[in-house]
C-alpha cells in the first residue's frame, strides 16, 4: 500500500530566471523557447515517487518574478512546506535577489520550511557569472539545499525536486524509508545535491 504525501512548494526568484520553465520541465518535461511571463501566479502539481510505497505530491505555486508582484508573494509562501529560490547563473544580480527572497523566507515563512537554492540556465554556463563555489558557500552558510539546473536540457531538474521530497518530513508511520534518518523534520543542514545519493529510479544528479 502506497502512501502519498502532499506538500506545498513555492517558486521564488527574480523575473526571467526560469521559474516557470523549471516547473514546466518538472511537470510536463517540456521546454518553451518562448515563454510568456507569468502574470500573478500559476499553480501546478506533480508527484514524485520516492520508493514503492511513498509518493510525494507537490502543489506548486509558480510566482511572477516581476517586482510589482512582490507584495503577493507572502500569500504563496506563507503555508509553503518548501521553497525553490531560483537564480540565473548568467546574472549575478539574480543571486542577490535570491538572497533577498531567502532572507524574507527565513523571517516570514514557516520556520520549518525547506529551502532550496537553484541556479538555473546551466546550459549557458559559458556565460556564467555566478560561480558554483560562491553559491554553494552561501547555501551552506544558510543551511539551504543547493544545485544547478537547466530547464532547457532538463539537467538537475527532477533531481532537485526529488531531493526536496526526500528532505521533507514524512511523518506518517509508513513513511519510514531508507535514508529517511538523514532528513529528519526540521533539519536545515545544507545538502549538496551533487553528493546526495540518487533517488530510486532517478539518474545520479550531476552538475559537471
Amino acid at each position: 500500500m502506497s502512501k502519498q504525501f502532499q506538500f506545498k512548494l513555492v517558486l521564488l526568484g527574480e523575473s526571467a530566471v526560469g521559474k516557470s520553465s523549471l516547473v514546466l520541465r518538472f511537470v510536463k518535461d517540456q521546454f518553451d523557447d518562448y515563454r510568456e511571463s507569468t502574470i500573478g501566479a500559476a499553480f501546478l502539481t506533480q508527484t514524485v515517487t520516492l520508493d514503492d510505497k511513498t509518493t510525494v505530491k507537490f502543489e506548486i505555486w509558480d510566482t511572477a518574478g516581476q517586482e510589482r508582484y512582490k507584495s503577493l508573494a507572502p500569500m504563496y509562501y506563507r503555508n509553503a512546506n518548501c521553497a525553490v529560490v531560483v537564480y540565473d547563473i548568467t546574472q549575478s544580480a539574480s543571486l542577490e535577489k535570491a538572497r533577498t527572497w531567502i532572507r524574507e523566507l527565513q523571517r516570514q515563512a514557516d520556520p520549518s520550511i525547506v529551502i532550496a537554492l537553484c541556479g538555473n540556465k546551466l546550459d549557458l554556463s559559458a556565460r556564467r557569472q555566478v560561480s558554483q563555489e560562491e553559491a554553494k558557500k552561501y547555501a551552506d552558510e544558510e543551511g539551504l539545499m543547493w544545485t544547478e539546473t537547466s530547464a532547457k536540457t532538463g539537467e538537475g531538474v527532477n533531481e532537485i525536486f526529488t531531493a526536496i521530497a526526500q528532505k521533507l518530513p514524512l511523518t506518517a508511520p509508513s513513511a519510514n524509508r531508507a535514508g529517511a534518518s538523514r532528513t529528519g523534520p526540521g533539519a536545515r543542514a545544507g545538502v549538496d545535491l551533487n553528493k546526495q545519493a540518487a533517488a530510486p529510479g532517478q539518474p545520479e544528479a550531476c552538475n559537471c
Partner: protein
Amino acid sequence: MSKKHIIGYWSVRLELTAVCQAEKSAGNGVANQRQISSHCHKGFIRMNVISNARQAAMATGDTSSDISNKTKKDILDWDALRQLSLRPNGFGDDRVDIWPKLLNVSKDNSLSNYEEKKDHEMLSKAEESHQDERQISLDTDRSFVLYPGYHDIATVIFLTLPPELHLACVEKLSLHRLRDSMGSGLEPVLGLLRVTKNLLRLADPEYASLLEANAQLPFYALSNLLTLFSHDMPTLPLIQHVFDYLLCRPPIAVVYLATVLILVRKQEAVKLAEEDEEGMIHSLLSSLPALHDDPSCMEESLYDNTKPRKRQNTEPPEEEPSFFKEEPEGADKSLLSALDAKDTVPVETMQSTDIPGDDESKATDFDPVPGYDDQKGVDSVKLEDVSPPSLNENMGEADKEQITHPMPSSLEHSPPEASLLSEPKEDPPEEGSTQYREPLLKPTHLFLTDLLKQADELFTKFPPDHAALSLSSIMGPQSVVFTWSERSSALPSDNTAESMVSRPELVVYPYIPEPDTTQGISKEVTDKGKEDRRRRNKLKKSPFGQMERKTMLAGTVLVLGVAMAVYGIKARNASGHPLFVEGHVHPTTKDWKRFSGWIGGAVIGVSSKLLGGMSSDS
C-alpha cells in the same frame, strides 16, 4: 483564422516581446529569447513606444487634429456600436475604421506621427533600435511603466490596424484605458480585483463565498484585467472581438467580462472545491474556457431562439472534459489543467478547436447557449439561487433581496435555463468524490457572443455605481474608470492623463484589509496575524490611514488630501514639472472643470465609504 494569421499573430507577439527588451541583450551575440523574455519581465522598463510617439506628436506641434478627432468622435453612435459588438465576429473588417475612432485617433493625426516615427523604425527593427543603451535610458525616462502583458495588448492593435495607426492607437489606449496599470505598482489592478470580488458577491453570493474561502481576492482574473484578455485568448479573431466589445464600452467593462468568465466556470470550480483541489481552482479560473465565435452557429442562436431547446438534463455527458479526462495521477491532471490554454493547446490545435469538428453534436444540434447546457447536461440546474441579470430591473439595494428570485425570462437571446448565472442545484449523488476520475462535466465550450451579452446583462443589473460594488470607494478619482468618457472633450488631456499615473493614491484608494477575512490562498492559514499587523502598520503611516476610523473628520482629511494632491498635479503641470518633459501644457478652464469633477468623485467615494461602512469596499 488561417495558419498564416496565426503565425503572424505569434511572430508579432514575439516582435513586440523584442520591443520590450532592455539594453543588455541587444548586440549580444547570444541574444535570444532568454534575454528577450528576461527583459520583458523587468519591472520597470519604461514605455518608450508611447513616449516616442508622443514626442513625435509634440514635435509636429499637431494639436489641430484633436479638434477633428473630437468632431468625429462625438458623432459615434455608441449604442449601435455596442450592439454590433455583440454580433458574431463583432465589428468584422470595419474594426479597422471603428477602433481608431473609439480611441480618438484620426488617420491624419496618426499619419503625421507615423512619418515622424518611421525614422526610428523601432518596431520592425526592435533589436537595433535598442542597441543604444543611452538612447534607451533616455527614451525610457518617462512616466509609464511597461508591465508583462502590455505587449499582448499592443500586438492586437498592431495586427488589426494599418501601421500608420499603430502608435497613435496604442498611445491613446494606454493613456485613457490602460493607464491605471501603467504605474509602478500593482495596487490599481488589485483595486479592480476587489471590485470583481464585490461583483461576484452580487451575482452569485454562494459561489463568491466559496471562492473567497479559497483566495482572498480573485487573483486568477489578474491576467484578464491587466491584458484585456489578450494574454490568454488563443486566436486573433477572438481577441479582436473582445476588443470590439471593450473599446466601445467604459474601461470598467473588463471587470464585468472577467467576472462572467469566472461565473461560467462555477460548476467546475465547485467540483474542484469539493475535491479539496484549491490550487486547481486557481488554475481553472486563470485559464479561459474553449471559446467559439462561429457565425453560422451564432446566426441560429440569435434568430432561432424560439426553437424548443434541446433538453439535456437526463442525457449523459457525451464527452469527457479535458480537466478530468485520463487522470491516472495528479501529475497528469496538472498537465491538463494547470497550464494555461496555450500551454496545453498548441496554436494550430487551437485553430482546429474553433471548428466544431470534435463536437459535431453541438454544432448540429445547436442550442442557444451551448456552453451552459453543456454544464447542465450533467447536473440538474438550480435557477432560483441567483437571478441572472435582467434588462428591466431597477438597480439598487433591492437587488440584494432579489437575487434569490427566479430569473425573469426577459432576455431575448438567452433563455433562463441557459443563463450563465444558473447553477447546479446539487451534484447527483453518483458523482461523489470516489468517482473523481469519471467524466463529470462536459467540456466548457462557450460562445464568445454569449459571454459578451452576459457581461452586458451583469453591467445592467449591477452597474458601476451600484452601492454594493463600492467602485467609487475603491478606485480613486483619477482611475480610468472615472476619467474615461465617451465624449473625447471630457477626457483628460494626454499630458494630464500621463501625469495621473504618478499619483497611484488617486488611482486607487489605499487598501484596508478586511479584518475577518481569511487571509491568503489557503484555508488553513494560521499565522496570518503577523502579515495583517504588518499591513496595518503600513497603513498607519499612510496619510490615508485615518480612513480606518469611521469619522467625518477622517473623511474631511481625505477629501482635502485628494484635493490638494489634484491641485498639486495641476500646479506642477502648469509650472512645467519634469514629468511633462514635452512641455506644452495649457491649463484651461476645461481642465479645471475636469479636475473638479475628479475631486467630486473623491468626495463621493469618501462619502459612500463613510456611509456604507469601511468593510464593504474590499
